[in-house]
């Protein structure tokens, strides 16, 4: 009897406790109304991978959230299948250090997978334009581009951010970020500083994967590269199979593109996010002083190919002879 009574009591108290618990709020993920994209218009330059990070403010939401690009269309509302289709894109699978000894070693760290060109990070909300995208596939500025919606959801709720804008910019296959002529290099005729009197030409001459450097006089004849006698040719850039033309008119490396491979990882070949090639020589100047001169060349090349980079001293060639 007593035991039954006791059991009954326990049942009642458990039931009481349960009925109280029933009204508790569930432990759901919070979904804040304050969440928003801090960047609404994206203008990636095509031909290179562009990643937009920190573009979303989640407010007081529980993390992580799930993101999905839900509707992509052209600016005037027509379908844009080119942004949904999968394309082969090159990704990194291993860690690039700048210490790789061969092209194969670098290639082993990369892979090609099929991805849509305009992609959103599943939980991070970062937007990526892959390097495969080019102006043949996508509409580029001055076209008004595309409009897309993003669906953000978690177990706490779902929300659509509508009419985010994507305005792709036409490719810039290479960029030159200032050329440094150092040491007060003099012209061989006027013996005045050459500072600023040089042009750089980027020519894509084939579909391979190499880079060639040439230096030309005003009459377009090459300056033999062995005149740049103190240049560290081996570590000019992260390239392999360095070979000079028989007359030293050019030097060629087999490389992997883009150059630099990972702009944010500092290596001995880079400076401030660019590849940095340096051509140096010395000569004895007035008073028997040995002077060092150099052409510092910070650059980036995004498009794969056989590139020919020409430094053209259009006014006068540098002075190499000793005084």
């Amino acid at each position, binding site marked *: 009897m007593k035991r039954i009574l006791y059991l009954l009591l326990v049942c009642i108290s458990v039931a009481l406790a349960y009925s109280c618990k029933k009204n508790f709020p569930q432990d759901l993920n919070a979904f804040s109304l304050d969440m928003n994209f801090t960047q609404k218009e994206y203008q990636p330059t095509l031909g290179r991978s562009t990643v937009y990070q920190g573009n979303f403010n*989640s407010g007081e939401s529980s*993390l992580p959230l799930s993101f999905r690009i839900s509707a992509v269309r052209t600016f005037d509302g027509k379908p844009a299948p080119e942004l949904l289709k999968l394309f082969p894109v090159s990704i990194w699978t291993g860690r690039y250090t700048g210490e790789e000894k061969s092209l194969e070693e670098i290639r082993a760290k990369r892979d090609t997978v099929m991805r849509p060109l305009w992609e959103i990070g599943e939980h991070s909300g970062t937007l990526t334009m892959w390097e495969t995208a080019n102006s043949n596939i996508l509409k580029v500025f001055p076209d008004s581009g595309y409009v897309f919606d993003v669906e953000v959801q978690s177990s706490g709720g779902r929300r659509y951010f509508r009419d985010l804008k994507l305005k792709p910019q036409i490719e810039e296959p290479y960029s030159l970020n200032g050329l440094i002529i150092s040491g007060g290099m003099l012209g061989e005729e006027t013996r005045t500083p050459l500072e600023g009197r040089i042009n750089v030409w980027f020519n894509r001459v084939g579909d391979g994967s190499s880079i060639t450097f040439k230096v030309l006089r005003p009459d377009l004849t090459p300056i033999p590269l062995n005149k740049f006698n103190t240049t560290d040719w081996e570590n000019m850039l992260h390239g392999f199979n360095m070979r000079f033309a028989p007359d030293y008119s050019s030097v060629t490396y087999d490389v992997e593109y883009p150059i630099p491979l990972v702009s944010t990882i500092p290596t001995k070949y880079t400076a401030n996010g660019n590849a940095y090639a340096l051509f140096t020589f010395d000569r004895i100047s007035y008073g028997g002083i040995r002077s060092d001169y150099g052409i510092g060349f910070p650059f980036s090349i995004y498009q794969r190919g056989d590139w020919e980079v020409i430094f053209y001293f259009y006014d006068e060639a540098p002075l190499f002879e000793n005084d």
Partner: protein
Amino acid sequence: MKKYIIAILSVILATSVYAQKNVDVSGFVQDGETRRGISNVSILSTKLGKAVGATDKSGYFKVSVPEGDELEFSNLEYNVAKESLVGKKLLVFTVYLEKKQNALEEVVVQGYTSRTRETMTGSSVRIDGSQLQDNPVSNVMQMLQGKVAGMNIQLNSGQPGSRTSVMIRGLSNISMSGSGVDGFLTPTSPLYVVDGVQVDDNTDFEYGFNSGGTGISPISLIPPEDIESIDVLKDAAATALYGSRGAYGVIIITTKRGKSKVPIIQYTTNQFFNTVPNLRDVLGGVNERYARINQIMEYNGDIWEARDDIQDSQLLSDSLNPYFNNSTNWQGVFYKPTYNQTHNINASGGDVTFNYKINGSYYNEKGIIQNTGFSRYTLNMNSEYRPTERFRLSGIMSGNFGKQKTGSGNSVTQGGVAAASSATSLFPSPSSSFVNGDILSALTGRNDDRTTDLRATLDFDFEVLKGLRASNNFSYNYATTRKDVFTPAVANNNNSKSYNHDGQRGTLYNLTRLNYIKDFNRHTVMAYVFSELNMTEFQAKAQQKTGYPNDQYEGPFGFNGGSALGGVLNNMSDVRTAGFAGALSLNLFDKRYIVDFNYRFDKSSSVGPDVPWVKNPAIAARWNLEKESFMENFADNFLDYLSLRGSWGKNIVPTGTVFDANGRYIYSGYFNNNQTIGFSWGQMPNTQLIPSTTTQMSGAVEFGLYEGRVNATLETYYKQVDNMLWEKPLANHNAFEKIKTNEVSMVNYGYEFNLLFRPLPSSSKVSWDLTLIGAWNDDVLTMLPDGNREFMKYDDQYNTFHTLYRLGRNSMSFVLFDYRGTFATDGDVPVNPATGEPYKTAEGYYFQGGDPYWTDLNGDYILDNSDMVVVGNAQPKMTGGINTFLRYKGISLNAQLSYTYGRDVINAALAKQMESYGSPFGRYGGRKESTLLPLDRYDFWRQSGDVSALPNPFDFRRTAVRPFRANQTLFMEDGSYLKVNYITLGYNFPREWTQKYSVTSMRVYVTGNNLYSFSSYSGPNPELVTSAGYDRTDGYPTPRSYTVGLSVQF
């Protein structure tokens, strides 16, 4: 009295001479448990059918009764004992009486009235004062750990005299003061009522880590020897009539009263020895030097640079210099065992018409950290005068003085010692002439807290008509607190410094009550109404001076006026609360059914002016099943009692201040070349501010079986806390910066059990009481401001320990990086496929082999705050205790254990120690944060390819990655423990021996306190963590103490 006894005896003698031959019987009546004499035991002769005498104060009796008589010894508190004279040759003997063991007959206090447990409807527990003896503690609440189901007591600090954290039925407030590891949960100690005076343990002084005030808890000023009983009231029905401040529970402390007709003088002394518990392991001397040198050689890039760096560091290279050629155990310098004593003398006497008590007590405990300690001097007296049944007057006066020395820390932590004891062991110990500032200020500075607490109570009642009593209770409590800190010039860059803090608090309390009792045959009705008024004034001033002329002459104050800081502090308060209440108690069918109704109205000056009186109803009922006719069968056999009770009620506690509700005027600079006072735009007044409300439901079953051999209380409760105070920032286009509102709610629910077993039959010579206590508590956050589901409170100061509040979850979760292991090689670090960058920290450092692998929750290959996971619970799931009490004749053995289960602790101290390898040259020139942890017990990453449990601690050039950041799951540990609180072995000398020296009872005992904690926690003590669950490096370790005590009664 003696005169009467003699007179009665002579009459009896005279009358019985005729009847038959009388014999003289004499002996002692003693308590079977304590072997102390019991006074006023009446002795009844069954043959004569009347009382023939009573015992005196020592329990001695001598009566003359007929031959072959049977004597009955009876006293209210004890079971009746019978002693037959048939066949007895020696008519001198000792009678042992057993205390009544039926829990129902205990008297408890609830709502200003005492009632037997049998008629109690609310949830409350009484702890007898005898359970608080034999173990000297600075704060009596330490003794209650593990003794009350549902009361979670944690000794967060071993500092003598400090407050212990007391929580009844879970959390009552989730707001934190301070940031990150300094975060301190708003204290929600229950309301203490000491001899009728309300004492607030939460507000009188400052508790935070950077507190300005003193750290002496007012409860530390009560000598445990003087405590008659402690009642812990847990649910709303029990605390209903303390409504205006009873929401966190109520603890009623009653001091001893005079009970014996013959004056009794009792002297108790404890001699106790505090020993240093386990401290942290460190490397010393040559081991430390080689560890540092090897580390630099290995990780400093190239060997030439490493050699240069070592040469440049005098600490490492100048090993022949006596200043750098030492192996000093710094913890040994600061932590020392101490010898302490307490003395207590208590004189009492009197009877129903007049009784008195005087208790004087001295307590002195030197802390195990040098230059710390606590002393207490108290004098407490009370007297009660009852000339007739209709009139009663009692007065209590109590003066307490406490002095706490906190060295270079405060009442909670020991930052100075923690810093100084983390100096490199290569430095010489302070006994030599080479010393540095941190060490000096820890050892020679002055940091005294003093609290003087005066309490006076006058209480009288008068029976106006039959059944109608009017009573008034008036009390005044005046407390001053002083903090006096002085740092000598040599310890503070040749600039002596002082800080003084001075606070005064006066509380006036008055309660007027009309009480009516009417008996209707089998029913009793009791009703009462009362009004209460509480006025509290508090003001604190502080001043800080630097640049005294020298260390001996602390003045003049104008010496360097520019650096003087002082004035009234902004925590001043002036509080008025008033309440009106009515209660009706029905007691039907001979206590078979009991129903209580309470209703009260409250108003407080700290709520908003627009808020009306708060109404707090409570209802409670009890059904004593064993009195029902259908239970007779059981009641006759094995059942002592069986009852059900349940209650529902509401309580409030004012949480804000008058400034939160009404705004504040402050000094606002110059206007027209005059200093002006203007409105403070910091905080917007909230005229709707209301007190925090607690609504509680509880239900319980109580039963006793086999004549007291099993007593049990099983209880379940539901406690909802609404309207918690919350500070909300306002959008920056408002004039004000923030506002305080009442928009947070939470719920605690759980189960409590209290089981008492007496495994041995009452006939056994050995008696054994086994008590098991436990409480399971779950807490859920149920409301956040503005309808939010989640709110992350960022640690602005250190960006380390954020607090996440989330609906439907326990309120105290940790927000941590999820540690998955260590990268064995560089190649194991994941690479962002789009950019080619390896996984990196938010500051831009790429991870590499030997670095910790924290989960990248959102997959962006950047470790930042959005990758933190919510784990763990800083609040225990289950707390309780085990008590066993064994007694054989005069010998008793008492052991108390307490346990805490299901709480998580962040071992921030270990994190800091592992980080110590981050600077092999020694931080701060080796003066602090420079001890090295011995690593042989840990599995660290050492070279590429190692699959290890812990990341590489040695690469000091990569400390920016902060591999040993404390806010990661690696350092979250299970903080459950089972602690042996104390073991006491006592012996009561037989009266026959002590009588010769006119000592009525004498008792000696030895006690070991805080003996051992069973725990899987890797730090020294899982209990010594902050209320938010962080084990800081600068905590005050709890000492282990051994006591020899003596108690003599004359």
